[in-house]
């Protein structure tokens, strides 16, 4: 279908729900990290490493990173389709940006793995 092609095999309803579901996870994670800094008087290396060696924090962090990838895939696509009219350039930019968010997730995974 043409609609599928236009949205890279996704559809509008799926994008709508995914964008919001990932937004909730990202908001929760942001508040968690900001809360950690606000409630920890002195963030030392031991405390910082201890935080991310906790399995629940690892899972939450990975969930946030994957959510970021889905969220930016949809959001940046929306921005690109509105402002970049040349289809070739838009595809190339979309590819580069999606690659960047994949790199963020991959780096995050390996950092979490090593803590």
């Amino acid at each position, binding site marked *: 279908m043409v609609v599928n092609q236009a949205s890279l095999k996704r559809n509008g309803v799926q994008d709508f729900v995914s964008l*919001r579901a990932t*937004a909730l996870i990202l*908001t929760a994670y*942001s508040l968690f990290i*900001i809360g950690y800094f*606000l409630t920890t008087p002195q963030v030392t*290396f031991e405390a*910082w*490493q201890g935080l*991310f060696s906790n399995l629940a924090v690892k899972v939450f962090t990975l969930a946030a990173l994957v959510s*970021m990838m889905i969220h*930016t895939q949809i*959001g*940046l696509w929306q*921005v690109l389709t509105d402002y970049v009219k040349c289809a070739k350039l838009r595809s190339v930019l979309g590819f580069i*940006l999606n690659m*960047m*968010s994949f790199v*963020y997730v991959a*780096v*995050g995974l390996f*950092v979490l793995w*090593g*803590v």
Partner: protein
Amino acid sequence: MPATAKASILHRVTGVALFFALTFVIWAWSESLSSPEGFEFVKSLFSGFVAKFIAWGTVTVLAYHIIGGIRHIIMDMGYWEELESGNSSATISLVLWAVAAVMAGVWIWL
């Protein structure tokens, strides 16, 4: 430009900015967890203006994106869709953002 238009474009600008800010955030996070030396290095960067400004910018941009996002979700539920209520909620979002930006600045610099 009406408040609703400002709220809308800012949501986009802050979203794109956050995406690129993640390069710094994930780098600093990765480096700080790599070793005690890496942690101290990142910590020493934060005594300088540039890292503080990037941190403030990231938190401030995130604050708007979250405020604007919450407004969008409330609008998804059918509220604030009229001209007047839409403009009011947009103005309030911008004011809340200014407050958040000042608070983030106080937090990071003081």
